[in-house]
């Protein structure tokens, strides 16, 4: 069953189009990573899906309904980001109690155990927490809510890498026990990619890729070797990235339809071959201009 359906969705702030003619759908009970550069439209998209913003154009269906101003959608989703505002007077414990009254599936026991695990004092006020602790608390809230649809926008901001690792592990464990749909946007893809099923890559407000992450791993391949050897091998292929180094060597990343075949050909031709990390690949794919950093410094 499709839990989200977007059809030609656009959202403009004055003249800038943050989301531009975006169409995609998300299946029930999947974890999707929402990836893109700064300003690609990730946050706007999540706010549209949560019903916080109204579309300028196009149609969004969440649980088969328009999410904007929709109580049925609201009580089945939670949106976690670093700007969640809670009353300055409330302690963490009181926030948990309040959240529990909103969300019928909220797991009180787990939320308290997690507070303890991450050494968060339940009697402290939310406004007194450090940046990393705020993110940790917000994410605990998001996990324990057990909402049919959970959105997390850069949930790990400020967390140290040990906490980031652990909280994703906890999230995965909880997802296995309580399957539901989760969409996470993050700039730390390498820490997140293993727990993802699908990846939705945005570029300039529109969809660039939407595929299972295991397929993305075989979407591109990199070659490194002598310029002439590499160039003759990649004739006619789509080059995603290239960099010259040394006297006559080149590193190129090309798109591939048959990973194994390209791998074998390269090996047979004495060319160093490697896979491309998902993180690097996303950077290459969403690179705004031809060239790269060296162009900025070029004096021509």
């Amino acid at each position, binding site marked *: 069953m499709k839990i989200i359906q977007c059809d030609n969705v656009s959202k403009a702030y004055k003249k800038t189009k943050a989301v531009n003619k975006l169409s995609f759908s998300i299946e029930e009970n*999947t*974890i999707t990573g929402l990836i893109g550069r700064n300003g690609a439209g990730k946050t706007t998209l999540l706010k549209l899906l949560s019903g916080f913003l109204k579309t300028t154009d196009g149609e969004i269906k969440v649980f088969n309904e328009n999410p904007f101003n929709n109580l049925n959608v609201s009580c089945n989703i939670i949106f976690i980001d670093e700007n969640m505002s809670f009353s300055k007077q409330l302690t963490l414990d009181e926030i948990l109690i309040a959240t529990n009254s909103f969300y019928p599936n909220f797991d009180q026991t787990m939320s308290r155990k997690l507070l303890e695990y991450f050494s968060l004092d339940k009697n402290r006020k939310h406004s007194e927490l450090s940046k990393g602790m705020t993110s940790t608390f917000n994410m605990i809230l998001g996990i324990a809510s057990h909402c049919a649809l959970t959105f997390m926008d850069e949930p790990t901001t400020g967390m140290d890498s040990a906490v980031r690792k652990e909280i*994703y*592990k906890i999230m*995965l*464990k909880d997802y*296995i026990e309580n399957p539901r749909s989760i969409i996470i946007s993050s700039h730390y893809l*390498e820490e997140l*990619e*293993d*727990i*993802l*099923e699908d990846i939705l890559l945005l570029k300039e407000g529109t969809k660039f890729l939407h595929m*299972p*992450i*295991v397929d993305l*791993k*075989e979407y591109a391949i990199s070659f490194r070797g002598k310029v002439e050897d590499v160039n003759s091998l990649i004739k006619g292929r789509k080059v995603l990235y290239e960099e010259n180094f040394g006297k006559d060597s080149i590193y190129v990343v090309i798109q591939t339809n048959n990973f194994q075949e390209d*791998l074998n050909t390269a*090996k*047979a031709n*004495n060319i160093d*071959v*490697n*896979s491309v*990390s998902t993180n690097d690949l996303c950077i290459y794919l969403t690179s705004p201009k031809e060239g790269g950093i060296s162009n900025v410094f070029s004096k021509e």
Partner: protein
Amino acid sequence: MILDNDNLIPIYVQIADWLENEILCGNIGSDEKIYSQYQLAEMFTINPATAAKGLNVLAAQNILYKKRGLGMFVVFNAREVIREKRKTQTLNTLALNLVIEAKRLDLDEKEILDMVSKIIEENREG
């Protein structure tokens, strides 16, 4: 086992390889139930869909079979299938890489074979 994300080998293949090793060394016997996709997902902190893909790779190679509603089980001759497969595929690739590297270093056939014989000899004593 720790999964290696920078590896040329995709995560689901690494899972399949690990399961094969478990079968080869006898940790999981013939007609025994293998780990479920959810158990694997928890063990390796990966998405259950990725784990399922690893299991399906082995099912497609007749190393595992499905029992409806019960999960996946090890085929009675799984060890032979794995051994045969590794001999024809994995070992062949290793040999190919050996030959390529030797060519790069201008070694002739005799030098390669001598090297292999020497390693076999050393390991026999050890």
